[in-house]
């Protein structure tokens, strides 16, 4: 329980840090980005909306601490202002319409990569020098060396443009009515294949090698020798004794991977024009839509912190050593 509270405190500090970063960035950056934004979009906005945005982004003459308390108040009441590029939609509305796609894409890719990568790692560590152990790691490391977006564009070109097997952009075919119909779900799945596959391809190597190296360490533990001496079936020793104890670092990686899901799919989303928060973040940056940019960054951070906290709770269940002290 003390462990959980400590972690909770840490995540609150981290969240406060990102809010403060968000608050300070537009106020201390050179070149006055906010004025640039207003210059671009002034004619479309009401005077009171401009005033509200000025307050949010710090272009007013009040002392800094007053701005800061106001800012905190706004954040915690869910008021992140209105989007400039999608004026006059509130930022929160823009984000909530897109985070689902990011979670779908990133979640699918993460689960596939983690499960397959860990299984490969187990197989490689169990048969040192075998086919899986000697052939796969170099290949996967080599694939992992390629820039993410480069592989994604290559896959897009090959399977989308040349071969035409998969759709090349967006999360579903334009004009299709969203709903829980077989047609729509199939369409979404088809759009998901290429982006998810490219993420899996580059991230699977890390999972595999991490699991392999941990498991090599557990393989030489005394309890493995003991299990062998008892005459247990090798498959049982591999999964229930060695792999089970080697899983813990992978659980932590999974937590960090969740962070990658929300934020890291940015490049993939950009290449495939997938309508998630990463794609939107880049659009916001290009459109000088600072309120949306800040809202997206805070949402992404909050999601990452929440995911890590959940993993910590899981960790307490999995590892008795954490509970005892």
């Amino acid at each position, binding site marked *: 329980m003390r462990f959980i509270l400590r972690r909770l405190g*840490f995540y609150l*500090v*981290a969240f406060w*840090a990102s809010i403060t970063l968000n608050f300070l960035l*537009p106020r201390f*950056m*050179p070149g006055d*980005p906010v004025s640039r934004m207003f210059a671009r979009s002034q004619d479309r906005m009401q005077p009171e909306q401009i005033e509200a945005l000025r307050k949010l982004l710090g272009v007013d003459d009040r002392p800094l601490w007053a701005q800061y308390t106001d800012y905190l108040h706004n954040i915690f009441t869910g008021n992140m202002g209105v989007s400039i590029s999608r004026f006059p939609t509130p930022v929160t509305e823009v984000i909530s319409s897109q985070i689902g796609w990011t979670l779908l894409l990133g979640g699918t890719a993460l689960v596939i990569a983690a499960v397959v990568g860990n299984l490969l790692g187990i197989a490689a560590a169990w048969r040192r*020098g075998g086919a899986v152990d000697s052939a796969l790691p170099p290949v996967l*490391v*080599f694939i992992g*060396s*390629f*820039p*993410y*977006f*480069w592989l994604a*564009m*290559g896959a*897009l*070109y090959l399977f989308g*443009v040349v071969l035409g097997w998969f759709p090349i952009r967006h999360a579903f075919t334009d004009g299709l009515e969203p709903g829980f119909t077989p047609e729509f779900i199939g369409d979404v799945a088809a759009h998901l294949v290429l982006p998810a596959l490219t993420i899996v391809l580059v*991230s699977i190597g*890390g999972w595999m*090698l*991490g699991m392999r*190296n*941990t498991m*090599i*360490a557990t*393989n*030489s533990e005394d309890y493995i*020798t003991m299990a062998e001496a008892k005459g247990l079936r090798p498959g049982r020793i591999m999964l229930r004794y060695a792999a089970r104890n080697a899983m*813990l*670092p992978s659980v*932590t*990686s999974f*937590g*960090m*991977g969740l*962070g*990658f899901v929300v*934020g*890291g799919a*940015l*490049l993939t989303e950009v290449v495939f024009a997938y309508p998630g928060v*990463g794609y939107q*973040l*880049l659009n916001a*940056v*290009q459109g000088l839509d600072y309120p949306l*940019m800040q809202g997206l*960054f805070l949402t*992404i*951070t909050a999601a*990452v912190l929440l995911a*890590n906290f959940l993993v910590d709770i899981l*960790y307490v269940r999995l*590892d008795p*050593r954490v509970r005892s002290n």
Partner: protein
Amino acid sequence: MATAILQQPGTTAGKTAAAKPKTSRSFLRGLLANRKALAGMAVLAVFIVLALLAPVLFPGDPSRITAMASLEPDAEHLLGTTAKGQDVLALTVHGARSSLLVGLTVGFASTFIGILVGLASAYFGRFIDEALSLVTNVFLLLPGLPLLVILAAFLPPGLGTVILVLVVTGWAGSARVLRSQALSIRSKDFVAAAVVSGERAGRIMFREILPNMASIVMGTLLACVIYGIGAQAGLEFLGLGDVSTVSWGNNLFWAGNEGALLTGSWWVFVPSGACIALVAFALALINYAVDEVTNPRLRKIKAPAAAPVQSAPDTRATIERSAAQ
């Protein structure tokens, strides 16, 4: 992070370092006898030579227009030309300069900060350790790519911004790994002896502790350089770098911008991505070689079950994962 709890004092590298005073020499010899390391260093050397000789091999501005647009590779333009009519080979060779420069600068700077933070944490302990670890963990947890994008959007574009932003988002991973290693060395007797004999803090940190973690520092440095090169390319691909410089990331940005793939000009798109991959792969090879040389368990197929050496297998995975972000 939750793994910090599991980090046992006395990792493998620390043990061998304490046992043999001349580790660094035998470490280098082991590295030179390692096939992976040699292959990696050879590839890296080729790219460094190319980068240094770029003005001799392709004199003049590489982005000037020299030929017809979108020519396929032939004898005169070995890698063809872009949609603007620039020579792709010249762009690629010149691109090595900026990419390697940024990658190495980011790598060295992040490792340097990581060393300072890690050593200070481990040596002073208590309050300083708590505070530094908190900051490190917060930076580790903030989603890397979105933070990169936000920072790059607020700062004025330029090479300096790119480097600054990459260091800000990249140092935390190395700090965490180096701290846990420094902690294990801090608890060794020879450090206690140095403290008792009244040596100054700086001397103990840099002359007693640091030389004994040379291999981990090297691994961290390599991981940071890989991160730097990859993240720079990603940032530039998104159009958030300095688009006027010639680098691999910018080459790919322009390739995407000019629709190289949609018109089928794969030769514009392939070379820069392949170069990034080759450099990253070469660095990864050296990194694995460092790991094999310092961790006997990964080197020998049949690990001796007797030596109860605690290894920290999750550190590598952590670096990898944070580098991927």
